[in-house]
Each structure stands twice: as structure tokens, then as C-alpha cells.
């Protein structure tokens, strides 16, 4: 019984690794470019914008 459980764990771990490997293959240059551009824009608008929200004590 214990052996079966450990076998299942190994299989699920393999699945996770396979999934990660496939996902990594799908991340291409455009995704990285998009991510970098979004981070840049977030910093840019936070830097140049100055709205104040009502997060203080009400």
C-alpha cells in the first residue's frame, strides 16, 4: 500500500515537471518582452502619477 502511494507521488511529481517543462517552452521572447514592458509601465505611471486614494483611516 505504502509502495503504491510513493509510486503515485513519483508519477505526480513527474507530471508537475513535465508541465513546468512544457510551460517553459511556451514562454517565448514576446512573453518576456510583454512582462518587461508591463513592469516598466507600472513603474512609470506610479512614478509620474500622483493620485491619493482613501486608504487612510475613515
Amino acid at each position, binding site marked *: 500500500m505504502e509502495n503504491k502511494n510513493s509510486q503515485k507521488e513519483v508519477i505526480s511529481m513527474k507530471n508537475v515537471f513535465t508541465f513546468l517543462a512544457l510551460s517553459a517552452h511556451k514562454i517565448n521572447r514576446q512573453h518576456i518582452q510583454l512582462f518587461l514592458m508591463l513592469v516598466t509601465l507600472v513603474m512609470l*505611471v506610479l512614478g509620474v502619477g500622483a493620485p491619493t*486614494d482613501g486608504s487612510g483611516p475613515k
Partner: protein
Amino acid sequence: MILLLAIVAGLLAGLVWAGMRKVRYETPVLRHIWLVFVAFLPQYIVTYLPVRENLPIRISGLCLIVSQLLLFVFAMLNRNHQGMKILMIGTMLNFLVMAANGGFMPISPQTASRLVAPDFLSTVLPGSRFGPKDILLSPGHIHFEWLADRFLPPLWSSYQVAFSLGDIFIAAGVFWLLARQKNIYIRKGYNS
């Protein structure tokens, strides 16, 4: 928060637009990205880190001005995008009002009263910091009052935020930058 919403909305609009035309979403190509990271650093220190409480208000104001100037340079270097041109107008307006008011965005007690409880507001002295980048000033002491944080959503809205005219241009610019798909028009031109 409202500016981040503009980014999300712009990206969604761009993706939907590209999807409808069955073309790949083209990420706007921005140059000199490193400049944003460098420019944001002093601002991050004086607005988000706990050390900001110990810094003299003049130093904090100066850091904000320098940071905004560098970010404006970045926007200028990328002015080939239409959205960036709109964003530059907002940056200039915010820079003008902040530079004229010691490096901080002024907010009047009347506007601030919509954001925080009266008990809390009574503890904030005029001329002291209010929020990450704002300074509480009476309308008579604000230079370029029409450019200050003075716009508010309707009273019935659960999310209350004060924003400036510059912020409106910045939100519009970043939305347009992400939503407008340049390649679609070019390809359309080639096909026709």
C-alpha cells in the same frame, strides 16, 4: 490604483482588438527601459520605505522632482508612440504643480476630507505630508491649484480617490499606448 486600472484596461482593449482582427498582440517596443528603474529608485525610497519618516521633507521633495524629471526623459525618448505623447503632457502638468509646491502634490483639506476621517485629518498639520506624494495645503497656499489633486469620484462610489488633471492625461496615455495596435493599421495598408 486608478493608473494601474488604466494599464489593465489598455492591455485588455489591445488584446481584444488584436483578437478581433485575428492578429498577434504586438507589444509596444520601449527603449531605454533601464532609465525607469534608475528613476524610480529614489522615489521608491522616499514614498514607500519606512525610512521616509526620518527624511527631511525638502530632501524627499527633491528626490521626487529628480525622479519625475528622469521619467519624463524616458517618456521623451519613447515619444514615437502616440500614447507616450499624451502621457508626457500629464507628466509635465504633474511635474509643474509638484515642483511649484516643494516637490509634492498639493491637496486641500476639503478634498482630503473625502478620503480620511475628520479625526485623522485634524491631526495632519497644514504643510505636512499626506499620503505617499501629497502635501496638505490650504487652497490659498497652493500654486497652480487647478493642477492639484482636486478631482474626486461621485460621493456614492465606494472607492474614493483624489486625482489631478495630469493623472487623467497619464491614464489616457498609458491606455492608448497599450490599446492601439500599430501593426494592424500598417498591415491593413499593405493589403489594400
